[in-house]
């Protein structure tokens, strides 16, 4: 599988992301945000974590207007797979490729730790190799991960299987590190080809890092 990883000024997870996707046998290419086209043959675009444009104004608010984002939107509209991790998730929200918005964490702290998350829906390509209810141990590191979406919209998202990941403890009980509505950690769009999550699967891609659960997640993208 060919994976394009977008780099903005301030992105800092592009190499970890590349490493993780290389581990599962993907061909990867890091592309600059000024590019106006997604490289030919790309099957998955990953918007990695970091602090694009210094998080100025709002996380992801300025990156949204980079030339590459127009191409990412067209790519997604054609059914291409897009994955936003952490700051990438924030950028996808600001771009309206995913519903909702991020607020400051409820406790106002930058939270950086391993966090358990639970699969709420695997009826999508990303989590297709996992079971509903599976619990994964994945690092989180963010100050604006307090996901918000209006009640009516949230209900529709549940009905359509768009709420895919939830923060929990080791046993699977809700454990909310940032105040997100319903402790939501990850979502997808209605067409199930655009995904966003705050946890960093690429930081849990081999034993020496403390967890390999991230590999179980991203493996879903390959056949």
């Amino acid at each position, binding site marked *: 599988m060919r994976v394009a990883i977008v780099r903005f000024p301030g992105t800092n997870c592009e190499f970890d992301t590349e490493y993780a996707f290389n581990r599962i046998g993907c061909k990867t290419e890091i592309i600059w945000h000024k590019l106006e086209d997604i490289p030919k043959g790309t099957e998955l675009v990953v918007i990695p974590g970091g602090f694009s444009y210094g998080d100025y104004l709002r996380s992801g608010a300025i990156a949204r*207007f980079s030339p590459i984002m127009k191409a990412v939107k067209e790519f997604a509209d054609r059914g291409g797979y897009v994955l936003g991790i952490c700051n990438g998730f924030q950028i996808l929200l600001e771009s309206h490729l995913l519903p909702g*918005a991020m*607020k400051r964490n*409820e406790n*106002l702290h930058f939270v950086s730790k391993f966090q358990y998350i639970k699969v709420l829906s695997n009826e999508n390509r990303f989590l297709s190799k996992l079971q509903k209810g599976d619990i994964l141990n994945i690092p989180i590191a963010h100050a604006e991960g307090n996901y*918000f979406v209006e009640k009516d919209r949230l209900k529709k998202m549940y009905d359509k299987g768009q709420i895919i990941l939830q923060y929990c403890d080791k046993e699977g009980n809700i454990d909310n590190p940032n105040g997100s509505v319903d402790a939501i950690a990850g979502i997808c769009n209605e067409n199930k080809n655009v995904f966003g999550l705050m946890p960093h699967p690429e930081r849990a891609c081999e034993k020496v890092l403390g967890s390999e659960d991230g590999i179980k997640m991203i493996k879903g993208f390959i056949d």
Partner: protein
Amino acid sequence: MKAIVDIYLKPGVLDPQGKAVHHALESLGFNEVNDVRVGKQIILTLNESDENRAKERVKEMCETLLANTVIEDYKIEIEK
């Protein structure tokens, strides 16, 4: 001409910063405070002399970039 844009989280959207400030005020004995909302102010200096046109343009800026209207409201004030 100057445009002063105030941006706040919408009523009903929980404001974590406001809550923290409220809590701090309470513990300092300012018990008369019912609610605190923390927002941000953006001051734009414009080369535009028509107030209505300026307002219209700044509104466009708010909708496009300055505010995230999923969670935020904005208020524009023009200062000559």
